[in-house]
């Protein structure tokens, strides 16, 4: 499988990263004039100590492992010709530009289909390519704002907390990977290519299912006079269910009691008179603030690890709120973060895939491509250009 890949950032690059990890040949196309900076992550930190600049962005490297990178100056007709040759031998064309960018270069879907009739074309665009807002721009936090995900992540009497990272860049990439594979499977079955219009905001909106049915069937809006804490649980109702302060600076533990049985175990462990007034779920739900105050008074004098161990022993659902170093260094996560070799950065640890396949495992070995790193290889090996021709194309500013 070969992907002619214009994706960038995380919302697009994360999709083809999955395919590359499972062995697809992903050929990433970048603009030599702007030095590939249509992907703002390319030269953006964080950096390894002592490194900085175009080839060293940690996010760019993380999201583009195992891909090849070529440069094409698509202002030039010779470059457009090379792109046509590449599309002819590709299974899919993927991009997450604003609407209309690919068309403006003369490579809209109709043209792609002319070049290769069974091509799969997948775009991932904030508002999609159709509809009143399709000209509007987004990035991860905007997608999260529009779709309700920011709103519903909150504490009472506070503004929305939202997501402290681009959850929908990650998740938009997952939907894009699904869409690419679905379209390729459809092609395997029917011989027919197709166009996929993925609006990241719609993928995000679809993640609010039960709340939306509560709205359409019961007319209950999520917007209330006072928003409930999103650390609590409504569907299904559980209490206690929250994140509680522990001993130390900014240390926290998450605890859930799913039912009266879980609560009885916890109450026995806490062994305090106040627990008697919270025996039933109804009692616990009726005074969640009071319950949480008591629980936190109990956790605050202990380390999160101690609470976690004590509750695992019961067992009831519990997890310390993990700091990055704690989860990354957890021996149980060994293998999740492979070390790849990047031509400029050297060895770098990156996100792997959270799945183990018995027959066709994923592998990540190579860091993101440096600018134009694989141009000569792709043009000579795949498209039949000679070394001399490639040299001339470089000299003429085509590559």
């Amino acid at each position, binding site marked *: 499988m070969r992907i002619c890949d214009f994706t960038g950032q995380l919302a697009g690059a994360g999709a083809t990263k999955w395919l590359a990890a499972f062995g697809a040949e992903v050929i990433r196309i970048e603009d030599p004039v702007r030095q590939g900076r249509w992907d703002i992550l390319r030269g953006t930190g964080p950096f390894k100590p002592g490194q900085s600049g175009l080839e060293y962005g940690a996010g760019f490297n993380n999201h583009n492992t195992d891909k090849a990178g070529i440069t094409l100056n698509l202002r030039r007709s010779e470059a457009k010709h090379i792109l046509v040759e590449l599309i002819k031998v590709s299974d899919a064309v993927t991009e997450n530009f604003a609407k209309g960018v690919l068309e403006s270069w003369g490579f809209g879907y109709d043209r792609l289909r002319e070049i290769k009739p069974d091509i799969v074309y997948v775009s991932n665009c904030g508002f999609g390519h159709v509809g009143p807002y399709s000209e509007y721009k987004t990035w991860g936090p905007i997608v999260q704002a529009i779709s309700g995900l*920011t709103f519903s992540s909150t504490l009472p009497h506070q503004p*929305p*907390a939202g997501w402290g990272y681009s959850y929908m860049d990650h998740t938009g990439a997952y939907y894009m990977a699904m869409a690419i594979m679905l379209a390729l499977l459809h092609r395997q079955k029917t011989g027919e290519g197709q166009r*996929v219009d993925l609006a990241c905001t719609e993928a995000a909106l679809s993640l609010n299912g039960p709340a939306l049915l*509560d709205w359409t069937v019961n007319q209950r809006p*999520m917007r209330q006079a006072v928003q409930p804490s999103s650390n609590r649980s409504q569907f299904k109702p559980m209490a206690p269910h929250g994140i509680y302060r522990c001993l130390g600076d900014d240390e926290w533990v998450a605890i*859930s009691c799913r039912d009266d049985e879980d609560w009885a175990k916890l109450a026995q462990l806490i062994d305090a008179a106040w627990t008697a007034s919270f025996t039933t779920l109804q009692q616990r739900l009726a005074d969640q603030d009071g319950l949480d105050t008591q629980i936190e008074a109990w956790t605050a004098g202990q380390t999160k690890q101690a609470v976690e161990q004590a509750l695992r022993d019961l067992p009831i659902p519990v997890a310390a709120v993990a700091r990055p170093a704690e989860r990354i260094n957890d021996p149980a996560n060994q293998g999740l973060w492979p070390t790849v070799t990047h031509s400029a950065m050297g060895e770098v640890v990156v996100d792997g895939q959270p799945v*183990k*396949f018995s027959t066709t495992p994923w592998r990540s070995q190579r860091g993101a491509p440096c600018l134009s790193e694989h141009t000569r290889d792709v043009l000579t090996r795949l498209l039949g250009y000679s070394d001399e021709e490639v040299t001339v194309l470089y000299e003429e500013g085509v590559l």
Partner: protein
Amino acid sequence: MTVLQGIRILELANERISFAGKLMADMGAEVILIEPPEGEASRHYPPFVDDDETKPSLYFWHYNTSKKGIILDLTQADGQDTFRQLAASADVLLESEPIQRLTELQLDYAQLSTLNPDLIHIAVTPYGRDNPLSDLPVTDLTLMAAGGPPWSCGYDDHNLPPVRGWGNQGYQTGCHFAFMSMLTALMARNAGLGGQFIDVSMVASLNVTTEAATYTYHINGGEVQRQTGRHAAVLPTGESQMRCADGKYVNTGVPPRFPDEFGKLLDWLRKLKLEDELPEAVFLQMGAEWQGHFDLSRIGEDDEITAIFSAGRMALTLIASRISAYDFFIGCQNAGLAVGIIYSPEEAFEDPHFIARGFQQEVMHPDRAEPVRYPGAPYKLAASPWQIYGPAPDLGQHTAEILAALKD
């Protein structure tokens, strides 16, 4: 033509994986939800139709669209026999059982794959199959805490706890990887590589869904800190959330930073007759007329760049205080700024853009006169569209049909 038509999936009912089954079923797979005689617990989760807990669960309705439902008692020999027959006829087994349970029932991959070498067995467990923690009870909240997201979410004030993003996103993230794995394994099978066993860890899925929190640590050991309404960061960054005149919030994203944006912002300020209230508007004019590269890295060093940049923020704050969040969102976008209104889910659902795109999907339920509106397609495949094929099954609705077909 539906992509997954003809693909049979056995889903051992468990709330942790019901979304994965829905993703498969809404693309045309025949997903058979296998429930124990007492039914899956989430049939009794709110919200309920008419808020009446004797009526169906909307939670269950949502997560089980397009599926068939059968009752099978896997603790009984005849239930196990039927399951073996079903596995022989299936393409995929999707389950989230305790690690040893299927082995104890003699229904594990080693045994099923001898009956059906093409079977793709996907086990979705909290911490992965090789971690005994997977057999301990979890909720979406505890998975999220262990997997990393809450560390990055919350408020500038760290006396407030980290926040778990709402809506079963921990379960759903594991389900995304289960579905991606299933599609990948189908492609491998189509390439002649047969079936396989796939171990999906929900906590690992969250661990690689944390963006810079993880790659910052890997690259230089930095630890990001949560901030109100914006990316967690090692060093504090400027606020990006604003409250508008109607009390709703907007996310202003990246502040204006190009001459064209300063110009459009100034035009908008004038149109709203607010220019006189902002003495700094003069800097917007300078920004609009800026020649060459507007170098953001010189904020704080270059007086003009600093004044122009902060005038952009001040103009947005002033405008936000005078108009509704929706008007602010539209006005900013028309000025070329990537700004979003912070909608509640139902407000987004009723927004004209998503209505125009056909996001609302109507589903007929046999006992209701009017169709029920569901959230629609997460992606629009032109030739093989996503669709809800039918409402969630009643308990055991398809038992007779499926078992009769097995005997044929």
